[in-house]
């Protein structure tokens, strides 16, 4: 005699402690929400690990945590963000992302409908990117011990021989390029925060960039020295980190940095500087001077790099300053961010 299996109530149901206890409720949650959304051969085996084919070349691995608030924002949600962000960390090494894992820490009382929506969004993002989520884990913690849901991911990718991109690779004379407008993601999150509505919809730029990086490597190959996705701390943080790791300085021109007018206006209103605001679908690249034109054209030919721009150059500077000519015509530094500009954006 088989018991009648009730469907998971994703309309009104909530996650309770039994969903994390290792019993039938947990098995059902994993099957009906996660396997249903991520659907692939590895998950169907129901093992606690995925067995993957050994790869040619070198392996690249990354891990990442997602605690964004709010969980759903214009242009994305914590689910798609966790897939895009992890893929991008692999792609910035010049590698091809192959597999992802995802681990969920869910707060007791979290709506099953929201969990399903997040899982579906992750599944859609992973299918669209062609990078499957092959293994996962679920934990439920008591109410008040988490904030809805936290997602931890890992990603594995493959780096072909002969390619070596790293943050210590910038050389004086190199060109600095960005793939598009700065600050969209952070401002989109801010616009959904309590009591901050701007009246214009600003969408997060959350996107997987491995297609764009593949096109860039195809065009510039070894002339590409550094790639970085300027997430927390924005372009300013990325430039300062590279300046230190490569022991160089930068001169950039504010006028050449793309910023959407509505993002600029929102930043103006909030007293933020778009250069410090997070991006989740943009990259910054540094390349040897002779490859600048080729690389820029390759970026602009890709849908995620249409607004790519050359914004400045690497210079010799043992102080590692990022100096900027302002739009106004004066000079200033773009320093490290100190303190918090925006809380919990990814």
């Amino acid at each position, binding site marked *: 005699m088989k018991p009648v299996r009730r469907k998971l109530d994703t309309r009104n149901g909530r996650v309770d402690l039994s969903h994390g206890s290792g019993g039938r409720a947990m098995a059902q949650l994993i099957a009906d929400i996660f396997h249903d959304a991520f659907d692939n051969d590895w998950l169907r085996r129901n093992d606690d690990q995925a067995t993957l084919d050994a790869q040619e070349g070198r392996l690249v691995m990354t891990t990442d945590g997602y605690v964004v608030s709010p969980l759903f924002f214009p242009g994305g949600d914590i689910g798609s963000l966790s897939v895009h962000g992890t893929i991008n960390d692999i792609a910035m090494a010049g590698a091809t992302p192959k597999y992802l894992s995802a681990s969920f820490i869910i707060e007791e009382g979290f709506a099953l409908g929201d969990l399903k929506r997040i899982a579906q969004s992750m599944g859609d993002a992973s299918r669209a990117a062609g990078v499957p989520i092959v293994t996962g884990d679920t934990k439920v913690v008591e109410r008040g011990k988490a904030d809805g849901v936290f997602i931890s991911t890992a990603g594995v990718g493959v780096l072909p021989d002969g390619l070596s991109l790293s943050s210590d690779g910038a050389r004086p004379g190199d060109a600095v390029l960005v793939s598009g407008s700065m600050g969209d993601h952070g401002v989109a999150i801010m616009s959904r925060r309590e*009591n901050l509505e701007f009246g214009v919809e600003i969408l997060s730029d959350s996107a997987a960039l491995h297609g764009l990086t593949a096109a860039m490597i195809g065009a510039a190959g070894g002339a590409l020295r550094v790639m970085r996705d300027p997430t927390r701390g924005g372009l300013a943080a990325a430039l300062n980190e590279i300046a230190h790791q490569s022991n160089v300085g930068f001169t950039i021109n504010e*006028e050449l940095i793309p910023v959407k007018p509505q993002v600029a206006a929102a930043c103006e209103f909030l007293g933020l500087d778009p250069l410090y605001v997070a991006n989740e679908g943009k990259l910054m690249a540094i390349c040897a001077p002779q490859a600048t034109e080729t690389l820029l054209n390759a970026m602009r030919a890709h849908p995620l790099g249409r607004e790519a721009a050359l914004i400045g150059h690497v210079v010799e500077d043992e102080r590692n300053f990022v100096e900027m*000519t302002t739009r106004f*015509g004066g*000079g200033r530094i773009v320093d490290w961010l*100190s*303190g918090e500009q925006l809380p919990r954006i990814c």
Partner: protein
Amino acid sequence: MRYVDEYRDPELAKGVAARIAAEVDAARHYRFMEFCGGHTHAISRYGVEDMLPRNVAMIHGPGCPVCVLPVGRIDDAIRLASDPRVTLCTYADLMRVPASRGASLLKARAAGADIRMVYSTLDALRIAEAEPEREVVFLAIGFETTTPPTALAIKQAKAKALRNFSVFCNHVLTPVAMRAILAGESDEATALDGIVGPAHVSTVIGARPYEFVANEYGKPVVISGFEPLDVMQSILMLVRQINEGRCAVENQYVRAVTHDGNARAQREMDDVFELQESFEWRGLGMVPHSALRLAEAFAAFDAEKRFGIHTVAAADNPACECGAILRGAKKPTDCKLFGTLCSPETPMGSCMVSSEGSCAAHYAYGRFRDRSRARMERAAS
């Protein structure tokens, strides 16, 4: 951005810079204080100093609410927030200001105090309504710009008969501080030649309150907008007044400032607040009649009365030059701590905390000039 980009136009800036360069008298120096932190920030962020002749120096003034709040008052706020009944609402800027014994609101929050960052006084009011079981205290700081909203919130709290909302008032007055700076000038060589007057403060109080600067101290004032072109035009207007031997209060910020200011806002302030006999300013010491407290009719909303706060003056770090920097007597780079022990990550003094503080603005935007300037000065001597 319409109505903003126009005031940051590089071509216009070049034109104004050329006019300033053509009109300054090479045989003399021009020392102008921009009173407001908003101007300090704009000058640093847009690199305005790069566009001025060498004999025009900008001195940063004390117009940064976070910077002038004395340590003792931050200590009070931390004590308040440590009361388990209290939810302290504050502007984010104040969170990292160093208090006594290395404390700060940020550290108090990490230790369990209920401190929430808000964007306006009304946010704090909303929290008080939503959480009647909490004692919600709004930490009010700022010059005349932020005072009327605090007054309105207090009036609303009274109208709604809210019993769990109060204000820890640290509102201070601009003209009084300006007078303290001018009265304290002793050295002919470092005396100011003119003042770039506040922007937002003046929208509230108008141009009239600065007349004493011209009449009693013989110095020109030009009230200026916060955009970089506003500042450049105001500098040009100051240069012209000095060259013509005039001193008057002129208004560059005509799009927002009138002679008499905003009568409604002034009325709200007068209704709710009264003058304190004396108030401590970081850098200026005790200044008579320079700050506000809640009037008797609103005493029920005064956090100092409700929680029996008696401020104990606390000493600044003896090596910190914030005081002299706030008076315009020293530059950030004159402080031994600048950029070494004191940085935005580990601020020792208040001027390194707010983005409007002189030290923070110079550290974040301008310090690349220090070495080249030092080299030039060495070569010149």
